[in-house]
């Protein structure tokens, strides 16, 4: 409860900070301070020190996993503020509002990690989504940004419609917004005589969540929106928001893991979606010339891996999704923060970066290695946990093999950037001077990724102890 209230309050504070403060960097520091308060507030509840207790009549319930995930998200946001704060300042005139919107998104995230029924789930999803439509269009003078915003809004509304339809069907069938295990059981075991409305509703819910996390074939909005939005907000959307979407997805569907019995229908659908997501994400990324667009597809491909958490639910899965979201978010935030500093977003724009900005090139390499899952980076263990959970789930070796093959494809396009930075001649120009603080922050982020790659239990240790 701490985080929900604090994040909303922080949003309000940020709104007014724009009126009271004229200095843009002062606003950034207010935002960082507010975020720190938020983190501490959340940790207070995590460690049971102090909790603002409001009776939500059973609409919300807090557990350690959710609170821990909040912490990951907030820390990732902190890294994002520190690395990309100055880029947010340059994104448009309403700096304070951007920060405020980000806090509102965080409020949505905190609801999504603690919902206890479809009603709050829906509210969380909407609180999460609506600020993003605005952020996507924040570059008002840019046609591409406007187009992306409108597309996002249209397709987002469409998926919200599907989501609502699903909720309505379930409510109609069961008379409650809760997720009864009978509902899920009938859905996962395919069509049965237990009634058609609730299972269909669940499938619709599933489809709309696939849309939110940009799983193929509901990914169409992602490349256009990620490409059109100002890079600094793409970074936020592709990492923190996406991770939260996944968490909600898994919380919704894996909550009753014991009910995910032998249902072949469910597994078949997931199989198809995972393979399609991996295929479209990875293969399409190969041909992209713009690093930004390539990253959009790569985020689709990474979603394919995260979907493994739904495919098999066991102890490994929970650890896996926590590690994966952390590894993926940190690396992508780092890459985007470097990308936004670049003059030219195309692959050629990175030529020779290792000569002009060795620190940027090196940390960028670490981030890309982590994304492709090379050992000694966090990405390796993240992928390992995901695949291991699928194997432990049993009977899905073919899926794991396919995933590994596509991971190999991903190495190809990730390494294109590394190749450009280190082995191609050119003068990679940055659009702003690189400050020492920025470099230090990058190195810290890269160090975290390497530490998690050597000692993944460092992260999970916080969770269990």
């Amino acid at each position, binding site marked *: 409860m701490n985080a929900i209230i604090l994040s909303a309050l922080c949003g309000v504070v940020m709104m007014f900070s724009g009126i009271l403060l004229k200095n843009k960097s002062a606003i950034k520091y207010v935002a960082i301070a507010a975020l720190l308060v938020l983190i501490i507030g959340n940790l207070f509840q995590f460690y049971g020190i102090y909790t603002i207790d409001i009776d939500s009549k059973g609409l919300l319930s807090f557990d350690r996993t959710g609170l821990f995930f909040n912490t990951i998200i907030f820390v990732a946001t902190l890294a994002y503020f520190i690395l990309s704060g100055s880029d947010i300042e340059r994104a448009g005139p309403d700096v304070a509002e951007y920060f405020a919107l980000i806090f509102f998104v965080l409020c949505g995230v905190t609801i999504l990690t603690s919902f206890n029924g479809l009603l709050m789930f829906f509210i969380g999803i909407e609180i999460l989504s609506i600020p993003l439509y605005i952020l996507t269009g924040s570059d008002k003078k840019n046609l591409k940004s406007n187009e992306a915003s409108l597309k996002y809004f*249209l397709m987002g509304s469409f998926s919200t419609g599907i989501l609502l339809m699903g909720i309505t069907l379930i409510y109609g069938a069961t008379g409650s917004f809760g997720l009864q295990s009978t509902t899920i059981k009938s859905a996962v075991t*395919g069509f049965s005589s237990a009634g058609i409305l609730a299972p269909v509703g669940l499938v619709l819910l599933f489809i709309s969540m696939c849309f939110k996390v940009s799983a193929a*074939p509901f990914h169409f909005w992602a490349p256009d929106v990620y490409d059109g939005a100002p890079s600094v907000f793409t970074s936020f959307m592709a990492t923190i928001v996406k991770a939260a979407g996944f968490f909600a997805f898994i919380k919704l569907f894996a909550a009753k893991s014991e009910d995910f019995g032998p249902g072949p229908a469910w597994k*078949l659908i997931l199989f198809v979606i995972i393979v399609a997501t991996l295929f479209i994400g990875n293969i*399409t990324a190969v041909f992209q010339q713009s690093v930004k667009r390539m990253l959009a597809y790569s985020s689709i491909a990474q979603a394919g891996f995260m979907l493994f958490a739904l495919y098999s639910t066991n102890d490994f899965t929970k650890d896996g999704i926590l590690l994966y979201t952390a590894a993926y978010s940190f690396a992508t935030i780092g890459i985007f923060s470097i990308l936004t500093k670049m003059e030219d977003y195309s692959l050629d724009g990175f030529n020779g970066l290792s000569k002009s900005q060795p620190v940027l090139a090196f940390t960028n390499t670490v981030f890309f290695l982590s994304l492709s899952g090379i050992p000694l980076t966090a990405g390796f263990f993240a992928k390992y946990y995901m695949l291991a959970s699928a194997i432990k789930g049993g009977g899905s070796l073919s899926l794991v093999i396919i995933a590994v093959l596509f991971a190999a494809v991903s190495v*190809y396009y990730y390494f294109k950037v590394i190749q450009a930075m280190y082995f191609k001649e050119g003068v990679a120009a940055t659009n702003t001077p690189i400050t020492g603080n920025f470099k230090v922050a990058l190195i810290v982020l890269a160090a975290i990724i390497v530490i998690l790659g050597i000692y993944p239990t460092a992260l999970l240790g916080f969770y269990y102890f």
Partner: protein
Amino acid sequence: MNNLVFLVPLFPLIGFLINGLGRKSLAKQAIGAIGSASILASFVVSIILFLQVKSSGAIIANYFNFIDVASLKIPFAFQIDQLSSLFLLIITGIGFLIHLYSTAYMTDEEAPHYARYFAYLNLFVFSMLLLVMGGNYVIMFIGWEGVGLCSYLLIGFWFKNDAYNYAAKKAFIMNRIGDLGFLLAVFWLINKLGTVTYGEVFANIGKLSHQDITIITALLFVGAMGKSAQLPLYTWLPDAMAGPTPVSALIHAATMVTAGIYMVSRSNLLYTLAPATQGFIAIIGLATALFAATIALKQNDIKKVLAYSTVSQLGYMFLGLGVGAYTGAVFHVMTHAFFKALLFLGAGSVIHAMHHEQDIRKMGGLKKYLPITNITFLLGCLAIAGVPPFSGFFSKDEILAAAYEKNPILYFLGVAGALMTTFYMFRLYAMTFLGKFRGTHEQEHHLHESPSAMTIPLTVLAILAVVGGFIGIPEVFAKDSHWLESFLAPVFAGSKALTEQKVSSHSTELMMMGVVTGLVLVTIAITWNKFSKYEATTTEETGLGKVLENKWYIDELYNAIVVNPLDALAGFFKNVIEKSGIDGIVNGVGTFINYSSRQLRLIQSGQVGAYILMMVLSMLGILLLWINDSTIVHFLHKIF
């Protein structure tokens, strides 16, 4: 006192780190001092541990879980018992002498290389210590690989010479072939027992079937063949002479090659339960002993003779292991360490004096120029020839006596080998030190005794080579005088309980000793007489002599049956399979992915209407899939 154990390998490691990292900045004196002092410190700790083991038995020191996967737990543990404490003394003691010797021998090197040399040397000792101290097969394997690496680094120390690099590679590859066997044996153990800790393996030995034990021991022995240079993997050892002479001494005497002996004696219980492997070891050992001895008869390079003699002596040790004389084998390792280190360092001293001339045909008469080297070298020769009461006599006699009990044929062949040993060693001695000098005047002018840093180790080793045998006086002479046997008894107790003791009468043994000693003395006399008057001739050897001189053409044989076909196969793979097959597939996959990427990109048309249409279609598809899952699954099953 457990806390002392880790100090033994720690000192060389520190030495390695200091010398390795500070090689650009340290002064030569400092480098030598650090290198030697670290081993000396280890030696001191080893003595303490030895005394402790002697009084209160084995120490097992567990540090942390090295590997902890599912049910498999491999601790990082050291086991210091009678066997390993003895090896610790040999390794650090002789290692120290060799370090000391090296400070003078390598003095011509520039400081960075000098430091590199000592760093490698320290790392070598460190690896060997790990090998010996490890409390399980995996830790042993780390050391096992470590010495392999260090031998590679040290043999190729003068890396500017291509031939030396080649020798280094050869040593490494031959070792790797053997290591594979070792590794497979470890896997086999893990699979069958789920543990590799010595104590647990030997305690649970009953769970292994007879076949398992035979396979494990055979695979382990393959590892030993590589490391301890047995037929057919011995060829690297003579080539390893490319390294600096003290390194040869280190490899041949104190470390590396004795690893195989150590490993087999450590696993003695397994071997005792696998008579088939034991027989195999005995045959390989004896064959190697004889084979290498015949080659040594005709070699003219001072170090090569010693190298083949090492191979031959190792053969004896394996013969001992093969006939169950574990104590004898370990005893021989020890005495061999003394006299072989002595001989190598002596040879180094000669080479040093002769300005890197190694051909004994160009030496002679060095007696008066190198008095200390001469005396110590002679003592070494007497020891290796097995003249009583020098150390080699006792240890070799013990192995041969055990062989006789097993099978007299083994004994007679062993004696033949011993006589050959005597012959080539005294040929070497006579041609080097006796007669008149056959080198150039330039060389003669510069002949001088080596500095004291080199002669002190020689003297110490000579004393050890002379008296080292008295720790194992056979029962024939005095009852219960075999100190080593009673010391090592706990290690070999399990094996001893399994074998019945067949003791030949004391009179037979004494008679055999007498005969052998007589034969040896006669051989010495003949050789001395013949080669002290050696004159350089230009006549080509013919017949068997030529074959021996060319080492039975074994290298050529290997080239013909292994290397050349492999080359041809590699060429085939490279030119045909890779170019058309693999490249084709790889490029094909790449092209396919690029193509599909280009096509898939087009789906992303940018039109919201099209997107939503596709999403709705996919939605319908998923609903259909879900409703008709059984039909589709059946359909898929029919296809695949």
